[in-house]
């Protein structure tokens, strides 16, 4: 679960990481009212999850209430588009923040390093820029420390990093405390990634988090019901919401641009099914991992979700039976999808395992197209999507 900036900064405040004075606002009237009672220069920041929102025009400056209202009217409801999100993301709310006098900008993040199975702290003196670009052009400008999760964080790690990254001396005193806070948020809330970019050294000598990027592990959200609730207030991803709404795992469904709908049992087989469709000259309309049991009700809801995408012209259900008998799987699919209330598209079903032959007969009788192999199924579905009979 990715958090919006104002939500991430709420977590920062809880552990004492300094953030600029700010106000979250959802309407132009709120913006106007806030600046009226707090006169001065304010930064108006679109609350979106995409990277590069500044370049996309999502950050503006307001010197008085009227200007703030105009900007808010312009930004709220606007769809920001960037290199990383060509589809765009709608701005639903704004964060008003005190303008900082910037002396220097640094970068600090903590993430899980899969290879070493440890948290890694990453620091660079080149903050405020796209960090991937820094990594590519100036790999030496990025320094890392791998923390032993059994021992935890100790301030020397941050000191070592600050010197190695050649952070301006103005950062040095505050830096260990900020990284300690960051590590606390990382561990306490089970983050995949927590990033401050830029970490700002102000002209007054304060060190403040200029931005907050927090991505929490969905599997750990049950430990933080108060934060899991935030996602309901500002859903980050339509696919995830749709998946959860029908009882699938959050990342079990993703919509793409092709015209062949897919359902598979298992994430690996789901990806393999998409690949098979590509190999057959087509494109999948989605990824959907229906999981192990594949009960009739879930099959029905999953099918309905996939065909709710009008681009879907043909469907490929790829079930590797394994334990479940092929005839049972087939009967389940027929029971689930024979009702009259679902949009019908040509449906290819691949069945394997014991009693697969009987299963294919059941499917054939119900007007579906049974196949034996994944390659064959993908080829048939692609042909059907392209108008073959």
């Amino acid at each position: 679960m990715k958090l919006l900036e104002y939500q991430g900064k709420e977590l920062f405040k809880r552990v004492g990481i300094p953030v600029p004075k700010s106000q979250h606002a959802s309407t132009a009237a709120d913006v106007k009212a806030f600046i009226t009672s707090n006169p001065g220069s304010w930064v108006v920041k679109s609350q979106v999850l995409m990277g590069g929102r500044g370049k996309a025009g999502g950050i503006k400056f307001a010197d008085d209430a009227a200007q703030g209202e105009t900007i808010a009217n312009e930004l709220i409801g606007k769809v920001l588009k960037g290199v990383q999100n060509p589809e765009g993301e709608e701005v639903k709310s704004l964060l008003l923040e005190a303008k900082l006098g910037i002396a220097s900008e640094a970068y600090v993040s903590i993430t899980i390093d899969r290879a070493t199975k440890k948290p890694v702290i990453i620091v660079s003196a080149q903050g405020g820029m796209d960090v991937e670009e820094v990594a590519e052009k100036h790999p030496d400008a990025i320094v890392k420390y791998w923390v032993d999760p059994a021992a935890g964080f100790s301030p020397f790690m941050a000191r070592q990093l600050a010197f190695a990254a050649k952070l301006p001396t103005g950062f040095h005193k505050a830096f260990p405390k900020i990284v300690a806070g960051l590590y606390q948020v990382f561990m306490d809330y089970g983050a995949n990634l927590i990033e401050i970019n830029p970490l700002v050294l102000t002209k007054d000598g304060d060190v403040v988090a200029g931005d907050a990027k927090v991505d929490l592990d969905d599997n750990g959200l049950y430990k933080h019901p108060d934060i899991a609730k935030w996602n309901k207030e500002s859903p980050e991803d339509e696919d995830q919401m749709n998946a959860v709404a029908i009882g699938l795992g959050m990342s079990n469904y993703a919509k793409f641009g092709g015209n062949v709908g897919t359902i598979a049992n298992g994430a690996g087989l789901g990806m393999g099914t998409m690949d098979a469709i590509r190999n057959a000259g087509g494109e999948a309309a989605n990824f959907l991992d229906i999981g192990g049991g594949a009960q009739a009700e879930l099959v029905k809801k999953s099918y309905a979700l996939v065909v709710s995408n009008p681009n879907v012209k043909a469907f490929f259900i790829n079930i590797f039976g394994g334990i479940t008998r092929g005839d049972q799987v087939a009967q389940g699919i027929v029971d689930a999808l024979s009702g009259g209330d679902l949009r019908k598209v040509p449906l290819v079903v691949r069945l394997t395992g014991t009693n697969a032959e009987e299963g294919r007969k059941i499917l054939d009788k119900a007007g579906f197209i049974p196949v034996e192999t994944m390659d064959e199924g993908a080829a048939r579905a692609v042909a059907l999507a392209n108008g073959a009979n």
Partner: protein
Amino acid sequence: MSIFLDKNSKIIVQGITGREGLFHTGRMLAYGTNIVGGVTPGKGGTKIESGQLVFNTVKDAVEATGATHSIIFVPPFAGADALWEAYDAGITLAVCITEGIPAHDMMRVVATTPGMRIIGGNCPGLISPGKSLVGIMPGGIFKEGRIGMISRSGTLTYEIVDGLTRAGLGQSTCVGIGGDPIIGTTFVDCLRAFASDPETDAIVVSGEIGGSDEEDAAAFIKEHLPNKPAVAFIGGRSAPKGKRLGHAGAIISGNTGTPESKVAAFAAAGVPVADRPSDIPKLLAERLSALTV
């Protein structure tokens, strides 16, 4: 021989009286797995229908049965606790089937259980065909033989194994290492074990996009397995880029994690990458026959 387990390995089931645990215990017993007991707190002293004793704690189970291996079927919130309990009781290999354990829990478990091999979580387990099944794989599709198989997924593994078996290529051991970001046993750990297994002639590595486990596997094969042919597969090559990859993650792995990087790494190691699972048996047979000439 096989890696990680053999016919005599004594196995307990953590969560043996739960729905999944009980169901798969029955399947494993039917396959011939040496299950010596199980654990469900509060049900100590009872027996399941097939006669295996249930204990209250892993410690009790290990003391009474001498078990060395455990397979874990518990809810995600109890996953880390179950692994720590296994470690505390002296279990040397734990297969964690549970899906959805928080990555931070796994990170702490891995850092604090030195010497215990953990397979998974979120994995289908492992099988040495004809000897022992410690997992939820459908035993019927496997065949005893000399191909080592390692995979990040469940059903895609079955897809590939089914093809191998139909082509007459039996398996020595098949390990499903699991699809989570933090897992106990990596491809390289498995390859190291296969390297010294005289009964494994060739290896199939079934990976997927994300992380750098495949790149590490390719480097290991190049360096340490010159005499064991390998064939790879990468699932998700048609997936659009980026959805779940954060910025900092991209820094650590540089250009790794993309299918291009993984294919290039295997190519550099002389390992062919199959375009489709159904191509794997043929590629493997070619590599094996080239070896015997």
